[in-house]
Structures are given as structure tokens and as C-alpha cells.
């Protein structure tokens, strides 16, 4: 029943008493460095500024300064930059990203070392991990079954540890500890490590930094009463994808294993192929917050030590928040990130990495990424697959020549078509020209627009095909291409010649094995389309010259990008044509390895005439 009150409520203004939607405002804690004491904002500061008081009360916002364009600071400028900063004093020029997760004002906790008191350790662990809110971290108190009983607790992250191994260890500690303990508590940790724990990797650490790193990665930390060291046991075991088929680099002949996301699996896959004691793996950490492990693998007796040193130098000097995939690392350590062409090779096949390591290259494996980087890389490497090596040399040469043609077609074909159709009518035979002209009579668009339209639709189809889930993916790709093309021709929006052209160009692009290179060629294609439509063959020739000169100037970790043809080093047996395997006597010279010979002159021993004494009995 409607009574007057409700009616009045209906027609009068009611203030909205519900909470407004959540708005992420800035608080004073967002810019700790501005709390350092700069009072007034300088003209170059990014984002709005707040006064640097530590009050949580609502502040009076300083008028938002127009966002100034900030140049990325180059290392060469940095010296001047620091100079200027000293001169400006309080004019808060912001520095590159904050280095670590250290909070301001207090000495970092993680620098502390383990104390002998168990309660103290427990407190520190609680503070470091934000317990008890952080439910992933488990702290389990145990009592060692020694006599006298010793208190302790273990810390681990649930989900990162292998429960069966842990149970084994706990059993060993709690149930099967029968030996007497040494009286001195200081030696307790060593005693536990050597005599009581059956884990296969046990380390003693005394700084919380190392303990945190270990526990964060799946180890279990054991703290003992009265011992100023913690025992770290390796108990890694988490859910991961197994060794799978390669998704992008498939071959017909050759192994079908691909890297997965776990670092140890990847290094193991490479070790399975190169069973050599000189194969060295060094570990580094990148990314200040996600602290990803990076492994560098190389052959100690082959790789140029300067190269290895350079790789390590570049990786360890990266200061950034996160490195999640090897692609991000690649971009950080590239020589020329502004050039379209990729200069580092990323592959998901262990056999390719192994081949590269034996050549003298260095492999960079990033934890969490199934793509392994190989440096240095030349353009010809990016156009090779293992298929040519594993098949016979005639097949390999044929495939390579085909691929060279595909490489050229994939970025030149639409530009050439436009140049011929717009400027150089005399180049095509008369009948062909009249056929093309006749078909173009019905199309209302100018040639350039037609080509751009078809190219963009093709790119859309390609992108969409990648993102469509599951079973619909391939169908939509085929249907989309066919139907779009056919319908466009029927509707007289494009001419049939163009559909064929764009399809051939796309196919040629797919024939290039390295995805990044194919992508950059896709982008070059658009430049050539514009050049061909404005200046004809002259434009395309200009574009070609520019591209050749710029590419010839590239360097990949000190090696010229177009070696061994750009600068002519020793002629390789495996660049465009592939000579039979028994002629591959030298490694690529531009890598300057320590040992250049990979095969003696006669690799096939069975060709030599048997020895005079009748020969060995095989």
C-alpha cells in the first residue's frame, strides 16, 4: 500500500547514501622520494605533485603541472644530468626507476642475519612476510627427535614445495634422529646438514636476504633454537607444463621437444644433447621485484671469453622492476633497440640452442619463459631451421633458396605491384595488362587504397586467428580469408589479382622461420607500399638501399649483422646453400671462438683405404 511517506520519498531528492565506486587516489605514500625534502615542484617533474608532508589528511593539491615531455635519459647524458641535478638542488629531477624494494628511512630488514634466538627469528620472518595475513607462507614448528630435543621451525611456501620430499625430511628430523647432538649449538646447523638431513641440496645461510631468496623459490628453511644459521633444503616441486611439442618452430625431420617454463627443465634439455663437461651454466638474477633467475650456458673451451663477459655485464647491469619473459630481457640487452630488425635469436628448440652453443655462441635462459635467447645472431641464422641440417644437403639447399625467394617476396611484392600498375605500365605484357586493367575497371577505389585495405584486413584476420579460442581458430581463419576475399571480389571492392597477391605475400611471410623477423618484414611492407605508390620503382629502389645500408650497419653483440656476407669473413659452408656435412670443417669465423676447427679434413673415415694389415675388425 502506498502511503504518503513513500510517495514523498519517491518524488523528492534523496541523497545517494551508498558508497561511491572505488577510486584509486594518490596518497602521500605513493611518492616516497618526494618525501625527501623537496618542497616545491620543479618544471620537469612528472605527474602531479603533492607537498611532501607525511600527513595522511587530505592535502591541498598543488595545481597539476602540464605533463612535460620527458626525454629518455641516455647514459652519455647521465653525467651531465647528475651535474645539473647537483646545481638545481631542490628542483627534484627524478632519477631512473627506484632500485629495490627498500622502504625509506630504515635499514632494510633483509640485511639482518639470523639470530640465535628462535623467537627473534620467528618475529623477523613474520615481519618480512607479512604473516599472518600472507596465507601462502607456512611456518611449522617442529621438535627435532634428538636427545636433548631441539626446537625449531620450518618456513616454506605452500604450492612451491614438493610435499613428499618434505615429509621425508621431516621424518628424518623428527623420527629418525638417533645420533647424539653436539653440545655446542653453533655447530648444530652443520651437524644437521651433514648427518641428519637426506635432502640432496642442503646449504647453510645466515643472512635473511639469502634465506628469503631461497624460500621464495621453493626451498624449505629450517631454523633451530640457539643456532645462528638456517638450514636451507631444496624441496622444489610445483605444477608446471611438461616437455611439449614446439608450437611455432615445427620441423618434419628432427627432434620434437621444446622448452618449457622451468629453468631446470630447460637446462636439462640442453645438457641432454651436449654431454660435455665444458658446458658451463652460470646463474644471474634480473628484475628487482620478480627476481627471475637467468642462466647463461656456453662451452668453456669454445666461446670467446670476451663475449661471455659482455653478456654477463649487460644482464647484471639491468635495473628494472620485472623481467617476466625472455622477450623483455632481449629488448633490454639489444644493441640497437630502435631498429626494426631483430638482432637476437629466440628459439624454443633445444637442438637449435645446442647447435649454437657448439658453434661458440652463448645461450640465455630466463626462468618462466620457454624461449631461449642465443647471442650473437646474424640475419642468416634467423633464416635457418634445423630441418636443412637434418635432411640431405640438396633438400636443404632447395629449401634455403625457396626461403630466400619468400623473404624477398614477403615485403616487396605489394610495393612492386603498385609501382608497376601505377607507374610502369610498360613492364607487363600487353595481354596481362589488359586483363588487369579490365578487372580494375569495376573497382571504385584507387590502387593504393585497395592494397592497403586488403593488407589491413589480412593483418586483422591473422591477429584474430591467433586470439580466437580453441577449435574455432583455424576454421575462422580459413573461412574468414576465403569468404572475405571472395565476397570482396564479388562486391567489386578489390580486384581478383590483388587477393592472390596478398595471399601469396602472407604465405611468403609464413615461410620465414623466425617470427620476429617475419613481423618486422610485415612492417617494412607498409613502407614499401607507400614508396611504391608515390615514386614507383625509384621509390622502391631508394627504400631498398636505405634498408640495406641500415641493416649492414647493425651489430649484434659485436658481430656485424650480415656476416659472413656483409663483411666477408671466411666463406661459410652453411649460409645460403648448404654444402654436404662433411665439408663443414670450420665454425663460423665471425664468432672468433677459441677453436675454429670443427671437423678434420676427412670427416668420413670409412672413405680412407683400409690399412695394410687387413684392417681392424669392426
Amino acid at each position, binding site marked *: 500500500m502506498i502511503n504518503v511517506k513513500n510517495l514523498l520519498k519517491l518524488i523528492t531528492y534523496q541523497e545517494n547514501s551508498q558508497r561511491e565506486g572505488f577510486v584509486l587516489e594518490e596518497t602521500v605514500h605513493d611518492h616516497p622520494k618526494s618525501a625527501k625534502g623537496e618542497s616545491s615542484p620543479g618544471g620537469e617533474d612528472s605527474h602531479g605533485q603533492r607537498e611532501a608532508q607525511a600527513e595522511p589528511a587530505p592535502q591541498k593539491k598543488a595545481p597539476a603541472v602540464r605533463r*612535460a*615531455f620527458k*626525454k629518455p635519459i641516455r647514459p652519455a647524458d647521465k653525467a651531465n644530468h647528475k651535474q645539473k641535478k647537483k646545481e638545481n638542488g631542490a628542483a627534484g629531477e627524478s632519477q631512473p626507476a627506484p632500485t629495490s624494494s627498500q622502504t625509506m628511512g630504515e635499514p632494510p630488514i633483509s640485511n639482518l642475519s639470523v639470530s640465535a634466538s628462535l623467537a627473534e627469528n620467528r618475529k623477523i620472518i613474520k615481519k618480512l612476510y607479512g604473516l599472518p595475513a600472507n596465507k601462502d607462507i607456512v611456518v611449522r614448528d617442529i621438535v627435532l627427535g634428538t636427545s636433548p630435543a631441539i626446537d625449531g621451525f620450518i618456513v616454506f611456501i605452500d604450492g612451491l614445495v614438493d610435499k613428499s620430499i618434505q615429509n621425508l625430511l621431516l621424518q628424518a628430523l623428527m623420527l629418525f634422529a638417533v645420533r647424539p647432538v653436539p653440545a655446542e649449538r653453533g655447530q648444530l646447523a652443520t651437524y644437521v646438514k651433514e648427518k641428519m638431513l637426506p635432502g640432496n641440496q642442503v646449504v647453510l645461510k645466515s643472512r635473511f636476504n639469502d634465506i628469503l631468496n631461497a624460500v621464495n623459490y621453493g626451498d624449505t628453511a629450517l631454523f633451530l633454537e640457539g643456532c645462528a644459521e638456517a638450514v636451507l633444503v631444496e624441496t622444489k616441486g610445483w605444477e608446471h607444463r611438461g616437455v611439449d611439442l614446439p608450437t611455432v618452430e615445427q620441423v618434419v625431420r628432427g627432434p620434437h621437444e621444446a622448452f618449457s617454463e622451468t629453468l631446470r627443465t630447460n637446462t636439462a634439455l640442453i645438457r641432454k644433447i651436449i654431454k660435455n663437461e665444458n658446458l658451463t651454466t652460470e646463474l644471474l638474477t634480473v628484475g628487482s621485484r620478480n627476481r627471475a633467475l637467468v642462466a647463461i650456458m656456453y662451452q668453456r673451451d669454445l666461446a670467446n671469453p670476451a663475449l661471455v663477459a659482455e653478456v654477463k655485464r649487460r644482464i647484471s647491469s639491468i635495473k628494472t622492476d620485472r623481467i617476466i619473459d625472455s622477450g623483455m630481457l632481449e629488448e633490454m640487452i639489444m644493441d640497437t633497440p630502435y631498429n626494426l630488425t631483430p638482432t637476437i635469436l629466440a628459439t624454443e628448440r633445444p637442438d637449435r640452442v645446442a647447435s649454437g652453443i657448439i658453434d661458440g655462441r652463448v645461450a640465455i635462459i630466463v626462468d618462466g619463459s620457454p624461449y631461449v635467447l642465443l647471442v650473437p645472431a646474424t640475419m642468416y641464422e634467423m633464416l635457418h631451421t634445423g630441418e636443412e641440417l637434418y635432411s640431405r644437403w640438396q633438400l636443404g639447399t632447395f629449401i634455403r633458396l625457396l626461403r630466400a625467394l619468400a623473404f624477398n617476396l614477403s615485403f616487396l611484392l605489394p610495393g612492386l605491384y603498385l609501382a608497376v*600498375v*601505377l*607507374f610502369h*605500365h*610498360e613492364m607487363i605484357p*600487353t*595481354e596481362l*595488362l*589488359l*586483363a*588487369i*586493367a*579490365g*578487372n*580494375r*575497371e569495376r*573497382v571504385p577505389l*584507387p*590502387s593504393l587504397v585497395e592494397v592497403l585495405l586488403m593488407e589491413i584486413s589480412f593483418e586483422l584476420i591473422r591477429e584474430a586467428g591467433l586470439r580466437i579460442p580453441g577449435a574455432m581458430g583455424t576454421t575462422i581463419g580459413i573461412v574468414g580469408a576465403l569468404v572475405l576475399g571472395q565476397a570482396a571480389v564479388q562486391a567489386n571492392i578489390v580486384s581478383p589479382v590483388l587477393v592472390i597477391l596478398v595471399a601469396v605475400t602472407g604465405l611468403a611471410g609464413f615461410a620465414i622461420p623466425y617470427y620476429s623477423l617475419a613481423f618486422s618484414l610485415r612492417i617494412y611492407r607498409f613502407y614499401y607500399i607507400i614508396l611504391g*605508390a*608515390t*615514386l*614507383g620503382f625509384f621509390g622502391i629502389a631508394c627504400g631498398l638501399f636505405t634498408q640495406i645500408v641500415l641493416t649492414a650497419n647493425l651489430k649484434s653483440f659485436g658481430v656485424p649483422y650480415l656476416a659472413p656476407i656483409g663483411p666477408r669473413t671466411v666463406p661459410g659452408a652453411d649460409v645460403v646453400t648448404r654444402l654436404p656435412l662433411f665439408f663443414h670443417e670450420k665454425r663460423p669465423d665471425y664468432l672468433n671462438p677459441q677453436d675454429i676447427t670443427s671437423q678434420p679434413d676427412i670427416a668420413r673415415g670409412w672413405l680412407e683405404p683400409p690399412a695394410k694389415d687387413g684392417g681392424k675388425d669392426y
Partner: protein
Amino acid sequence: MRAIKIFALFLAVLAVVFLTGCFGSRETDETTYVLAMGLDKGEKDNLILTVTIANPKVIAGMAGGGGGGNGKGAESFLTASVETLGPITGLEQLNTATSRHLSLLHTKALVISEELAQEGIGKWFSTLSRYYELRATSFVFVCRGKAKDFLEKNKPPLEISPTKQYELIGSLSRAHGLYHDITFKEFYEELKSRSIQPSLPLAAIHEGGLETARPGVKQGGELELPLGKYIAGDIPIAGENKAQFYGTAVFQKDKMVGTISGEETRFYLMLRGKFETGFMNFLDPLSQPETLAFLVHQARSPKYVTRMSEDGSVTIDIDLYLEAELAAMLSGINYESPEYKPFIEAAFSQYVQEGCQRLIQRTQEEFKADIFGFGEQLKKHFWTVPSWTEYKWLERYPEAQVNVTVHTRVRRTGLQLKTMPLEGGQ
């Protein structure tokens, strides 16, 4: 920051400069392609220019869908003419009447009428050689009558576009040698050369059907085989396509001075060493007036021996080497056997020799033009260009003494090795 702005502005200006009008780019649907060009002597002005232009809609339709089988509604090419001052001027004038830009990039044939050729075509060729769109590899013809009529009536029924016809005609000439194909480049070179005079193939439209046939040998005609005596336009063919190519026009410098028939063209080609194959008839030596036919081809290039005396008079001895295959015989005599073979070889050599000598005489007396290129052979007697230029071979040609010897060999006799006489009957 300012630098970035200035640079961006500069790039924008550059882009504008490059993209305004895209200088010179022309879409295919803005262009009309001229396939053949004809030059006539004009009544009121210098020239009548006729062009054959392609109709791409119809051509694409015919080639692709196959729908244009019977529907002759639209032709695959159109013709237009204009009376004008010069070739390129004419094109500009025609441009005012068509909706598209005329382009000479695919002009395959240049047809010059007889009248215009007799006046002299040197002055037009300067234009045509210089103009970018014309190519040196297009073919040149002289046509009897008006070039306008020729281009209008030349409708090859089997071809989609006339260009194919002109291209194929070139390759056909190698198959029978009754006319030869000259490209613009060769014609222009021969025009400017001091050692040879130019010649061009003859073309014409034939309206008469079978009526223009001349009586053969048996019907009381001349004892000479009239077969070769036709020139273009006279051959009695009745059919859909009226265009004929037969014979050669002889030029002295840039003026046309006469024509030679198809058979004479063959002799001309043999003397130049360009004859490839042909089917030649001659009178049977043992049973006139029957005829024999050989499939002839030139085995080796002719051998030239030139002698020059002190006062500059010249003797040239030419040896022609021909190989033949016995192809047809109307008399039934067993010529394949070794006793009779030398007869026909000698008879054929005699026939060709007489024909060549008559042709040479005709060029020396009637035309006074050395179309055979004997001057090229004489050049080796001179060391430097000034001495050759002073010799003035082309004017001395009529006094030169040329002797031709022909060597024929019958190599094969076709599928039959023997001819048995017919038995029985009355």
C-alpha cells in the same frame, strides 16, 4: 623538445611534398592503351593519325568469364583518327575526344601508308625515336591504300587483341619468308646507315575475295610461276580477316621507291642470310609445265667474297647454300632416286640463281637502292670511318658487279622414299 617539434614539422612537410599528386602515377583505369598507330598523308594538313585502342572491359571479360562468346556487342578494340600536324600533336588532339589519357606504352605496330612513304618519312622518325613512350621494338609496316582503312578493317577473328596478331606475324615471317618483320630499331638504323638501305614489309586489306586470282601456268598464264608475283592486297583469299601481309617495300633513304613481291622477298632474305624456311615451287625440269615444290631452308649463312679494285669498282661473289626437302610433286617421276636427284637440284639452283640476279638487277636499275647490305661486307676494306664515308658506297651501288651462285642439296624426301607410277586406267 623544440627540436622534436621542428623535426616533426619537417617530416610532415616532406610527406606532403611526396604525396601531393604522386607525380606521374597513373592508374590503369585512367589510361587508354594505343595498340597500333597508323600514319596517312593528310589532305589539308600533314598527317592523318589513326590509332587502335584497346577496350579492356571486353578483353578481360572474354579472357576470364568466357561470356563474350557470341555477343559481338562490344568490340575488343576501337579505332579513332585525326588529321593533324604530327604524331604527338595528333595524340594530344585525340586526348580531347577520349575520356582517358592515351598512352603509347604498348604500341606494337606502326603502319605507314604508301603515299606517305613515297613522300619521305625521315622527319617523323625523329619524333618517334625521341618520344619516351614509343619502344624501339615495335614493328613497322607499309600498307597499300590508307592506313586508316587498314587499321579499321584489320579484325583478326581468333585474337583477343590486335597486339598478339602483330607479335605473331613476326614469328610467322620466319616460317615462310614471304615478308619479313622489321622493328623500329632496325629500320631506324638502316635509315641512318651508310651501308644499307631500309626496307619494310607490305600489308594491305583485300576486299576482293577470290576474284583477284591470276591465271596459273596451265590455264594459259605466263610460263613464269605467278605464285610469287602477288603483293599484299592481291592474294585471292576469301575469309573473315581481310588483312594480308605479303611482299616488301623498298626505300631509298627515307622515300619509298617501289615494291617487290613475295617470292622476291624470299630471294632478298636469302641474300641477306635471314631466310629461314619456306615452301617454294618451281617448274619441273623434265615435265613442264608441272611443278615441284621444296621445303627449303638456308643451311649456312651466305659466303660473300668482295673484291675492290684501285678505282673503286667492286665485284661481289655470293654463294648461297640451301637445303631442301622434297615436298610435293605433280608429275609422278621418281625424283627420289639418285639418277634423277641432280636434275632437280640443278633446276632449283638455276631457278633461285636467276631469281636473285633479276632481283639484284632490279634494285640496281630500277630502285638504285642496296637493300641487301653489301656495304657491310665492303667495310672491311677500309680502316677508318672517314675513308669509308668518302667512298659513298650507296651511290656506287648501281655500278657494282654482283654474281650469285646457289648450291642446293636435297636432303630428305618426306615420308615417301619412292614414287611408283600409277597403273591401270586409260
